[in-house]
């Protein structure tokens, strides 16, 4: 009854793993934050990471674009492959990696610059635009894809910080996709937004799936259910269960998953 429709199953089969994590361990000093996580994240799929606070889901998300490099006491072991290549290889430039693996944070964090410059910053430093016309085009395209163009097209040179919370978050998403990433990581992107802005961002996530792999960390179970095709449940640093979102929310295999999603004391 809850098997995925045939067409969806076939497309999932054909999709290759965009990101493969093998035996990933993360330590913060003595704290073993991620224990032996193995997971395949598929292309053109929204994958949701859920779990109680401190379960390691954000830590694991931050491994995917090496954000943990910036924390001195943080030690990452195991392999994370992006299109088959080890992202922790010495030859990989983390700045280049982060252009490919974009990130959107919990709190909208636009640069204290104009809306235009917020978007143009990344393409400029990565040399993605040959000239001003090119850059204009990238800015417009990104803002359109971020579903915010109509609201800001007449004030591109106004400050990004002057927008509403929901608009700021969509601006940050537009900024993240301006460098044409292949993977978009989102760490609770809607927790500071009202339901309407949340719905707009969720709609956007669904559209982005056509081009990117999206990985979203969320505390809202309903959001995970609404936007994702695959769901991973983390608990105490372990990846407890990973599967089709419909299966996880109707008939999870692990009792810890069930306790968590049904709101029970596990």
């Amino acid at each position, binding site marked *: *009854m809850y098997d995925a429709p045939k067409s969806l199953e076939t497309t999932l089969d054909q999709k290759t793993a965009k990101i493969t994590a093998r035996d990933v361990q993360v330590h913060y000093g003595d704290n073993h934050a991620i224990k032996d996580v193995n997971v395949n994240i598929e292309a053109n799929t929204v994958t949701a990471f859920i779990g109680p606070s401190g379960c390691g889901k954000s830590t694991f998300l931050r491994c995917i674009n090496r954000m943990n490099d910036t924390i001195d006491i943080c030690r990452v072991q195991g392999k994370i492959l992006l299109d088959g290549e080890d992202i922790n290889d010495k030859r990989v430039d983390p700045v280049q990696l982060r252009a490919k693996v974009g990130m959107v944070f919990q709190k909208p964090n636009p640069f204290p610059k104009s809306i235009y410059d917020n978007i143009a910053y990344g393409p400029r430093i990565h040399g993605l635009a040959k000239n001003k016309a090119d850059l204009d085009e990238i800015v417009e395209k990104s803002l359109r894809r971020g579903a915010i163009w109509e609201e800001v097209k007449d004030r591109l040179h106004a400050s990004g910080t002057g927008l509403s919370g929901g608009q700021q978050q969509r601006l940050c998403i537009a900024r993240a996709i301006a460098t044409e990433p292949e993977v978009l990581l989102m760490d609770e992107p809607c927790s500071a937004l009202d339901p309407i802005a949340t719905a707009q961002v969720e709609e956007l996530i669904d559209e982005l799936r056509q081009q990117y792999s999206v990985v979203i960390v969320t505390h809202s179970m309903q959001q995970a259910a609404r936007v994702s095709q695959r769901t991973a449940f983390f608990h105490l640093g372990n990846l407890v269960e990973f599967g089709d979102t419909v299966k996880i929310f*109707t008939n*999870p295999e692990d*009792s810890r*998953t069930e306790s968590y*999603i*049904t709101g*029970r004391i*596990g």
Partner: protein
Amino acid sequence: MNDSRHIASAFDRDLDSIHAKILKMGGLVEASIVDSSKALESRDQELAEKVRRGDAAIDALDEQINDEVANLIALRAPTAVDLRTVLAIMRMTSNLERIGDLSKNLAKRSDVLGQLTQISGATGSIRRMTREVEAMLKDALDAFIQRDPDFARDVIERDREVDEMYNTLFREFLTFMLEDPRNITACMHLHFIAKNVERMGDHVTAIAEQVLFYVTGETPEGSRPKADVTSSDMKYNPEAEPD
């Protein structure tokens, strides 16, 4: 299956209330089946009247359960076992309500039958068939309480026996009608009653299937065991001897 309580205790209270109501409804429906078949066999018009009046309470519970389930879905967004619980109960309640209606119909016909020629042995056979359906219903509800999938599967299998009892009755009634046309009115009523009891068995089977869905998350695959052949195999043949 998860026995622990929700962090939001109001969620548990809502679920407990729905649980209590479906079990209460199940009890009323069981009693209704027992009473209507007893009324039929003993030509007890008072008891038949009690069954007819009692159906209102069953219908009221059905309505209450549906309202509470709708509220729970709207307000608590149940998932996993909670979702399966309310979906299963929502379907079970409509099956129970239908069984209640069929039992009420049985009681109505028993009044009419009281004024007609007795058909020897017929009410006894129907009583046995009804007893089996009532036992199946009791077991299906027990399987629900105990979350026992094997018990539920057993109930589904037993519907075959009810179907076979119906087939036998169908032939008997045909014979009686052929023997003496004055039996026709009574036999027509008796046949409707037998058919109703056979339908009750189907509803009980559907309840047992919901128990399976609730416990395992899967609905049984393939078709149910079907032994009611009267609609396809038993053509009217006046020459045929009943076996």
